[in-house]
């Protein structure tokens, strides 16, 4: 279309190529610095030890055949399997607690026109900002009172302190977007308030609920301090803590297995988080956009 081409001279091919070249050149350093560590961890995890500890050859590729030894070591000589089971169990229970509390709370704050709802919502969200570093010492007392020290159950109790505020806020925003009409229609049809919530609102809200589960999982995976402070028995640790503390013996670092163990959980978490990153950003900044 001639008029469009005339009005948008930027789409001229040679100019487009120049623009793309400049953008790619600008992005190249960012891409390198963001991706290189992953590449380096991966190649470390797959190199044989003699290939790992030498400085006389280009280290970016294999000089001896790649090996699965570091992964074998992880699964046969450490508690890695237990750590994965612990991490999954923690995530499951944290998600369950978060959903059971944050879904009703988010719904009530968004929908029921309660006096003080806005302030209460902001108040709950603000607790997300009270950092672990202030809470971990008093929470250590709570954990020992509940007799949960050195068990991953302590983390099930503690992680909801940050997943509930975040997910309540997220779900509050989400429930505001569900049309009121379908709920009113259900109530006219004889559903009570609870009936309308369970039968009408929840079924159309599954994207928000799945997002909450994802964040309960990824935010739990980002924790290091609580697990470090509360769990010191090898078999009870979640993956990040186990990898960081059990594969370093004195001055000896098992670098191959360290990188293998870190990547094996890090990459899936990064991919899932990546897919939901926009929801995370909207969750915390959305308030400022609307």
């Amino acid at each position, binding site marked *: 279309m001639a008029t469009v081409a005339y009005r948008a001279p930027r789409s001229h091919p040679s100019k487009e190529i120049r623009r793309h070249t400049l953008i790619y050149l600008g992005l190249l350093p960012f891409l390198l610095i963001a991706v290189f560590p992953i590449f380096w961890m991966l190649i470390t995890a797959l190199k044989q030890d003699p290939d790992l500890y030498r400085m006389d050859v280009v280290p970016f590729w294999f000089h001896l055949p790649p090996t699965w030894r570091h992964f074998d070591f992880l699964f046969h000589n450490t508690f890695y399997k237990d750590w994965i089971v612990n991490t999954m169990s923690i995530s499951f229970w944290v998600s369950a607690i978060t959903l059971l509390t944050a879904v009703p709370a988010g719904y009530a704050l968004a929908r029921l026109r309660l006096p003080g709802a806005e302030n209460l919502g902001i108040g709950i969200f603000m607790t997300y900002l009270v950092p672990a570093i202030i809470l971990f010492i008093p929470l250590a007392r709570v954990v020992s009172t509940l007799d949960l020290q050195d068990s991953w159950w302590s983390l099930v109790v503690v992680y909801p302190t940050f997943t509930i505020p975040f997910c309540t806020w997220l779900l509050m925003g989400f429930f505001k977007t569900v049309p009121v009409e379908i709920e009113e229609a259900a109530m006219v049809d004889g559903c009570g308030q609870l009936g309308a919530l369970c039968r009408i609102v929840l079924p159309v809200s599954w994207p928000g609920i799945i997002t909450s589960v994802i964040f309960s999982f990824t935010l739990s995976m980002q924790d290091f*301090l609580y697990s470090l402070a509360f769990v010191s028995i090898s078999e009870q640790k979640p993956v990040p803590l186990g990898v960081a503390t059990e594969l370093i013996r004195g001055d000896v670092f098992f670098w191959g297995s360290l990188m293998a163990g870190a990547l094996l959980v890090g990459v899936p978490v990064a991919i899932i988080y990546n897919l939901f990153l926009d929801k995370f950003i909207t969750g915390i900044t959305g308030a*400022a956009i609307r």
Partner: protein
Amino acid sequence: MAVSGRVGVLSWWRTPTARRYLFGYTLLAPAVLYVLLLVGVPFLFSLYLAMSDASVGAPVARFVGLENFQAALQSTAFYKALGNTLFFTVGAGILKGLLGTTLAFLLLRPFVGRKVVRALVVIPFTLPIAVSVLGWKWMFDSQFSVVNWALSRLWLIGTYGSPDWPVWLGQPNLALMSVMFVNVWRGFPFSAIVLLAGLTSVPPEIVEAAKVDGASFLQRFRLVIVPMIAPILFVGAAFDTVFTLSDLSIVYLLTNGGPDGATEILPTLAYNTGIRAGALGRGAAISLFLFPLLLPAMILLLRTLRRREH
């Protein structure tokens, strides 16, 4: 509502409004209680602990007033940690702001492969923090550092053992730079994405209008775009400040405060005092010194959020 006398109150309880309130607060109760019991109460408890001589070994504590705070204020280790914390947070914050802004503008306009680039560039922020810090610990290894290999091949430094061979995590200044670098590496994608979310919310017509009026790129950015996206910038900056101030894992895993306190920050000092050395009261007092540093960020966020509501 014309409510008068007992009968009126009783009948008010049967109105739809009253039932809605009851239903609503019942739904809210579990979340509010959880947060109160495990954030509110522990926070108050940490105030109490900070004023007691509680330790891991002796659960019965004695009230000691402000002794723990005074002890902190009289130790050089505390001032070192406080100084490092401030330098670390401000320095890393500026770098993340600059890099994030550059990246956001690079990603702003459509180009071929934009989605892929965006997904790759945010990797540092999405990796669990302990995982990526371990990767950096290996890259900063004293002998087999890949960074040193590259620098050595570029003739910028000598070979292993030569006096200019940098030991990233072993030399005081380099160690502080290294922990800051890892924090910036992890945080710059967050700054970029937050800024990008802001930039895309600015209607292009307004920017175009400023352009027609003859405003230069910097003028447009400073006078048109920044004021419009200020709330988002505040929120993003507040979150990043809180994450940075309260994060222990980068320093703990890379240097654990060493060499000789060069990278000690308040979180690591609080952890090492409170849990490792078992002086719960001292540790709680040190961690509470973070609160006044966090407060401006929290107030900024609170004001931004409340302004939206009205």
